[in-house]
Structures are given as structure tokens and as C-alpha cells.
């Protein structure tokens, strides 16, 4: 589930570890670190965008990015 908390300027994502494994999550977090900060607790991630205006979409873009990494795994 993706929940946007505008008051706290953060996005909460509950990821299913059977579908998004740790190596993909960690790789995506590393690739996004220029635009946001992360807090990770097992299958729960908090994304704090560095720019307020990014809050609407960055969580969704992050999930799409992970899906891209999963599909390109054999080629990376």
C-alpha cells in the first residue's frame, strides 16, 4: 500500500517482501537517494522527498522503478 502524508511530507509504503526482495529495494533506494531520504523497517519504507513538490508522485515512481529493476535483473 502507498500512503501519502502531506503534513509530515512523507510517503509510507508497505512492500510485500515475497514480491519485492531486499536487493531490489536496496538498489532502488540507492538510485533514488539524490531525490529523497529513506527509512526502512522490514517491509515498511518511509520516503521523505527532498523537494515538497515531488511528494505526489515519487512513491509511485519508486514502485515503478523497482518493477523495472526486477524485469531487467538478468541484464544488469
Amino acid at each position, binding site marked *: 500500500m502507498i500512503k501519502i502524508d502531506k503534513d509530515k511530507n512523507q510517503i509510507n509504503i508497505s512492500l510485500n517482501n515475497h514480491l519485492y526482495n531486499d536487493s531490489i529495494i536496496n538498489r532502488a533506494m540507492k*538510485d533514488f537517494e539524490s531525490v529523497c531520504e529513506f527509512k526502512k523497517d522490514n517491509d515498511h519504507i518511509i520516503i521523505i522527498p527532498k523537494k515538497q513538490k515531488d511528494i505526489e508522485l515519487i512513491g509511485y515512481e519508486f514502485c515503478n522503478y523497482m518493477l*523495472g529493476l526486477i*524485469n*531487467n535483473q*538478468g*541484464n*544488469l
Partner: protein
Amino acid sequence: MSQSIYNHYRERKIGDSHLITNDAGNWCILDKTKFDMFRFGKLENDLELKNLLRKKGFLIDNANLQEITDLTKTKFNYLFKGTSLHIVVPTLRCNHRCVYCHSNVVAQHKKGYDMDMETAKKTVDFIFQSPSDTITIEFQGGEPLLNYDIIEYIIEYAKETNKKHKKLLGFDLVTNLSKMDDTILKYLIKNKVGLCTSLDGPEKLHNKNRIYMGGNSYKDVVYWIKEINEDYNYNINALMVTTRDSLPYYKEIIDEYVNNNLNWIKLRFLSNLGFASKTADKINYSPKEYLDFWTKSMDYLVKINKNHPIRDRMVEYILAKLKGVWCNYTDFQSPCGAVIGQLAYVQNGNIHTCDEGRQYEMFRLGNVFDNTYKEILTSNQSCSMIASSVNDTLLCDACAYKPFCGVCPVCNYADSGSLVSILPRDQRCLIYKGMFDYIFTKLNSVGPHKKLFDNWMENLTVISQPGREDKTASL
């Protein structure tokens, strides 16, 4: 194998029909009935269809296995020839500021951006280490004519070196023509240097895209095209790059080429390289917008072709791929040709994977002073780059156009920071798919498009032997 077995194939709907393709690059368009007979293995009742599918390698048996293997060999033949196209950058200085320039050029007055004689000599020595029996040296920039002395030196030294190697040696020059004069031109013609320039359309559009500090870029280009064609009776080609400003003017752009007696046009789309990445918000467009422009251009070109037989280069490249003849358009190769087909040498002797790759440190392979050709070709970095340009990702492998298409790791890197692109969003993929769809739709129709494209396919002008490049292969 005494009986036929099914070869691997891919399928795509073209209107109400089904296009099938195989790894050897053969293709067929079947109506629904025939496609169902094929895919459900019910070919006994249609021997004509069965024979066609055998001939095209969709059914394989002892009799046609060698033929299919030979076709596949032809496809990959370029891998075994050695690097034949060598892009040499005599200078990064330029007197233009084209809004889409992918070369990270510097201003004309800057010092320290020219190739010197020692580097030029070393570069030619390196080039002749390639085992290819064909060598093409293509001068790019910046504006190469700003360091004309080095061009002349390289040509003379290459000719001298070639007396020992006896390769098929050719030269090409990509220039904005602002520094051309009769002395230079006579020398280039004497040495059969292929000439290519940019013409983006009518004067206002051309000058908006190609900003010239010292004058009127358009006037220089059309003046010299006319001079070269009419007074010197020599060929010069031209390309254009499509920007957002170009989109409404497809007719005017094609008319400009017709009026300047140019035989073909190539409506290049933007890449995210160099200056283009910085000006993207002003000049870029969606793949859909570009395809709309391109298909309208093709429709117009077909319409006027009876009186003005101008060809589109991209259509010809695609038709050559469909016909299974070699044309060295690296965008449609897998592996793409970086390193194995072309190398780029910049002004300080650094060697890059290809022309586009000279924008990034990641694609720098070595230096002519420090490395041999063997070291460069067999390095881990070269092998990785070559591997990353194979279109074997899932979506590519499942795509009917895979046998005719390719990927560009440099463009992927420019777009996403990764050598492997996220294909559903990949601009190149969406555009090329649209082009293939258009061509196959027209080939499957009746009408002027099919007639013209069939004629072009029969009389291709882009064919070259592996290693003897179509002059604009790198453009």
C-alpha cells in the same frame, strides 16, 4: 530431421493480418485463416503456404537448415570483420550552437581542444591495427574544418600507411560548411571524401535550430550544396534533426530538400545527449508527436515522389533489413556495432565506444598513446558494452521486430543512468516500433505507398558490404 519442425517465431497484428518474424530476419504477413493454420499445425491442406513457410525458415528441415544458418550468419557477419568505421574528432571547437548538439562542443576561440599532429599520427596508427579490410575515417566535431590542417594530415598519412596494408580506405566529413572554401573543397573531392551536412528545413527553422555566431547558417549550407552539386558535379548529403519547432513544417522541410536537389532526407529524432538534454523542455516532444510528424512526412513524400523522387533514409534502412541485405545502420544491429563496428577518437587521443559514447567517461575505453587495438577490443569494459547492446531483454525478445531492431546503451544511459533501458518508456523503442508498424501496414496494403516501397526495396541505395559503410551510417 526428416520432417519439418517449427522454428521459433514472433507475432504482431498488422491491421487484421498477422506478421510473423524469425531470428534469421525472415517475415511473412498472413491473414487470420492462414495464421491459424500455421500456429495450430494444420498445414497439410495448403501446400503453397507450407512451402512458403519452409522457404522463409518458419519450418525447418534438413533441406533448408543450412540456408537458414547462412542467413543468420549474414546477419552477424559484421562481428567478425574488425572495426571498420573510425570517427575522428579533429577539434571540439565549433562556430555554431545547435540547440540539439550531442557533442558537448566548445566555443571557437577556446584553446586546448584541437587534435595535434602527434595525436593524429598515433590515431591513424591505431586505426590500422584493425583487421578489417575496409577502413572509413569519418571526421566529426565540433566543426572539423576549424582544424582543417589535421584533416589533411590524417588523410595523407592514412594513404601513406595504407600502401603497406592495402585496405579499402575511404574518408567522410561531417561539416556545417561555414568554413568551406574552394581550395578545401578541391582537395576533398580529389581524395573522394564523402560530404555530409545539416539542413534542418527552410531558412527560419534551420537558423533557429542551428545558431551560427558568424553569420547565416542556412545561406552557407544552401550556397555550398548548390556549388558542390552543380559546379563541381560532386555529391553531398544532408540530414535534419527534428525539434518541436519542426513538427508543423513537414511539407516545407521536404520541399526544402527537393528544391536543393538532394536525393534523400533523414528526419532524425532527438536523443537525450549533449545540449539536447539541457534544452529538452524547449525542443523535445513525445514519441507520439514525432511519429505523427514522421508519418505525415512519409505520406507527403509518397505523394510528391512521381515528380520528385526523393527517398527517406529511415524507410530505406528498414526495407534493407526486411530484405535481409547488409546496411551498416548501427541502430538496427544487435550488438549495436559500438567497438566492433565503430570507434571514436577525440582530440586528445581518448578512444570511445562510438560517436554518441564520447559524451561520457563511462564509454571511454582507453587512449591511442596507451593501448593497442587488441587491448581495447578484448578489455572487460568493451565486452560489457557490447553485451549491453544486445536486444535480448524480455520485451525485446518477445517483440516481432527484434530481428530488425537494436538498442543503444549510450542513449539508455543518457535517459535513465542505466545501460539497460526501461523499455515501455523508451522513446527510441516507441518510435521505432511506430515506424515498423507504418512500413508493414503499407507493405500489406495496395496503393502508392506499397508501390513506392516495393520499388525502393528492389533498388536500395543504402546497401554496403560489411565494413564499407553507408556514408551516413554513424549519423
